[in-house]
């Protein structure tokens, strides 16, 4: 028995489902990001990633296999010349699904599915982010340390004094309380 397809079935029949997924894949490769329902996005992701893997392989056989799904030759051309080589250093995970909440009208949960940025751009973005964070920490760190050092000794002394006072107060209170209790008993 063949393994059932993962995820919900779409459309009115197998042919309709194939057509819808093919159209979604075409739109995704044409525009880079599309807004659709969560169910369709989740069904589209494995198909789109398989097509991108074909694009990375890049030979004629792969192109013909992609053309059986994506009928638009210009989209297949951009897929093989731009999208595929972008992901040369990435093993899968070419798309990202972000949920954007329910749709007005039928309350269907919607999602944005998009092609992730090429690895080089992402590395640059992460590096700039890390540099910014490091700069912030360096700017903030010396002040904080200095303040801590200045406050450290007096705070300890004060707390120690307070603690002793509090302990004495508690002792007094407890003594009074016990004496009161004894008084009531008598």
């Amino acid at each position, binding site marked *: 028995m063949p393994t059932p397809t993962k995820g919900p079935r779409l459309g009115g029949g197998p042919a309709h489902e194939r057509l819808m997924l093919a159209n979604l894949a075409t739109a995704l490769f044409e525009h880079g990001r599309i807004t659709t329902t969560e169910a369709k996005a989740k069904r589209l992701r494995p198909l789109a990633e398989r097509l991108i893997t074909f694009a990375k392989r890049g030979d004629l056989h792969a192109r013909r296999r992609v053309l059986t799904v994506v009928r638009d030759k210009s989209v297949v051309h951009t897929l093989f010349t731009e999208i595929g080589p972008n992901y040369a250093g990435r093993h899968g995970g070419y798309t990202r699904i*972000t*949920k*954007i*909440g329910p749709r007005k009208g039928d309350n269907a949960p919607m999602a*944005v599915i998009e092609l992730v940025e090429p690895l080089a751009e992402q590395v640059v973005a992460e590096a700039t982010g890390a540099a910014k964070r490091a700069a912030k920490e360096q700017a903030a760190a010396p002040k904080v340390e200095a303040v801590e050092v200045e406050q450290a000794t007096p705070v300890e002394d004060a707390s120690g004094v307070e603690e002793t006072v509090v302990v004495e107060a508690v002792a007094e209170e407890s003594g009074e309380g016990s004496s009161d209790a004894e008084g009531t008993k008598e």
Partner: protein
Amino acid sequence: MAVPKRKTSRSNTRSRRSQWKTSAPNLVTCARCNEKKLSHTACPTCGTYAKRRVLDV
């Protein structure tokens, strides 16, 4: 064809419908704009998810 013998009483109807309940959506505070939003979902107010721009607001 099998058909109901008796009219469903008002009491039975109402006891059946007493189980129709709604549940509150799981809202969390957006880290960026401090507005309430659905968890694991892009913020509809500022249009971001995980510090990434998702929606044009």
